């Protein structure tokens, strides 16, 4: 009798744990996609500035490069997302700070090196939560910042 009564509760706990685990996995993959995108973006040096002053300045299209690679990397997680990878990357807040020191007005952080910063909202399907009367889509906030050191 006790088992019969506890079974629904166990099912609820099981569904919640599985959904949370899946959500964590998607979050890790999205964070890795963002990290790799910003790393690629800061790996491109402005050759004209290098020849002129010898200083490292990021390429002018560093933010576009980060956005492009973020969409590509995120496409591997597309089945779990509630929006297309391209749309998520297009709406991401990606800022390039080609020279240093610089000040990020959004985060309040001061960068000592040329930096690319990415902040993206990633909507993830959570059908398990929906079965528990919770939102069917959970939005994750992904942040990544890279700089040549």
């Amino acid at each position, binding site marked *: 009798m006790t088992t019969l*009564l*506890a079974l*629904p*509760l166990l099912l*609820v706990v099981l569904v919640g744990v599985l959904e949370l685990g899946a959500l964590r996995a998607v979050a890790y993959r999205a964070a890795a996609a963002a*990290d790799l995108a*910003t*790393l*690629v973006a*800061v*790996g491109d*040096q402005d050759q004209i500035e*290098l*020849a*002129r*002053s*010898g*200083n*490292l300045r990021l390429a002018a299209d560093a933010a576009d490069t980060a956005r492009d690679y973020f969409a590509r990397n995120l496409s591997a997680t597309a089945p779990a997302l509630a929006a297309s990878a391209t749309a998520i990357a297009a709406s991401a807040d990606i800022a390039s700070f080609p*020279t*240093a*020191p*610089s*000040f990020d*007005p959004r985060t*309040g*952080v*001061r*960068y000592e*090196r040329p*930096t690319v910063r990415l902040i993206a909202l990633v909507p993830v399907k959570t059908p398990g939560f929906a079965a528990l*009367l919770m939102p069917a889509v959970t939005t994750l906030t992904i942040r*990544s*910042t*890279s*700089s*040549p*050191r």
Partner: protein
Amino acid sequence: MKKCTAILLMSIALLSSISANAREPLDDESLPLPPPPVPDPVAFVVPPGVYYVTDTYVADVVATSDATTTYSTTTVHESTGTYARVIDNVSTGASSAFDGMAFNGRGALTDGQALAGTYYENFVLTAGGYVPVSIVFFQDDSETKRRQTGSSSAAATKAAATSGAAVTSAQPVTSAPVTSAQPVTSAQPVTSAQPGSIIAPPPSSKPQAPIEPVGPTLRAGISLAPDGPTLASAEVLRGRLVQFWPRVFVNDVAVPIQSWRLLSAQPDHISANAGSTQPLTAQWIRMPAPGVSWSLRFEIFSLVAPTERLEAQIAITVRSPALVD
């Protein structure tokens, strides 16, 4: 139905709860205290009117066209990471509390009146907030001489804004160092020069003593482009191929080189140890140890003086992309 199910499940969960037999942790078991909160940089006191600098002071310019002499300031569109604000606007002849405080000074018209212009205060953003570092004066004035009378009196008039004008033969007459800014070369696009203008000496310039002729001076250097400026140091990304051009100058005029040879180097890959007209191509894969600086040292012979051995050196800083916490 779903609500009823949820209420039922919640009731079962609450009714079947038991005590957890928890206890208070001992003092030595408690987690370490979190670090004190870092003050938010945006909470710093921001001086009123401060803005991010996108155009950097280069030099004062005095240009004469017909009977009009224009006093202006050249800038270069470049962000140096500093901040600035306007602290005073002064008209011709008017005194200011900041006179004598600007690193580039405040010039005067031919009749001795101080120039009109604007004083700016420069700041750098540190962990402690905005720190003032210098004051610069942007002169913006003009005067017209009366030719018929030959009088030395001049009518000073406020100069019109000249931003965006094309670069002409006007040259900076002063070379005051640019504080909190990177070195600016003559290849930079400059603004606020007058078309067809010529150079007039600054009012405060002294008569120059005759310069005795000297022999040609040879200088060697390393540049990162065939016609680029010679550099003392360069920041390169790990894994990238970078070309280094040994160059020789006679009285600051580039001359062809005969040969070069690498005397010391630490690149992981180099195209050659010696060469003539071809540059050295180098690549760094490994990162230097902390506190260790790398450099490339060249021995260079030029066609102008084939027997004279010249040396040039460039310091290398290898950087690698990394995530920021």
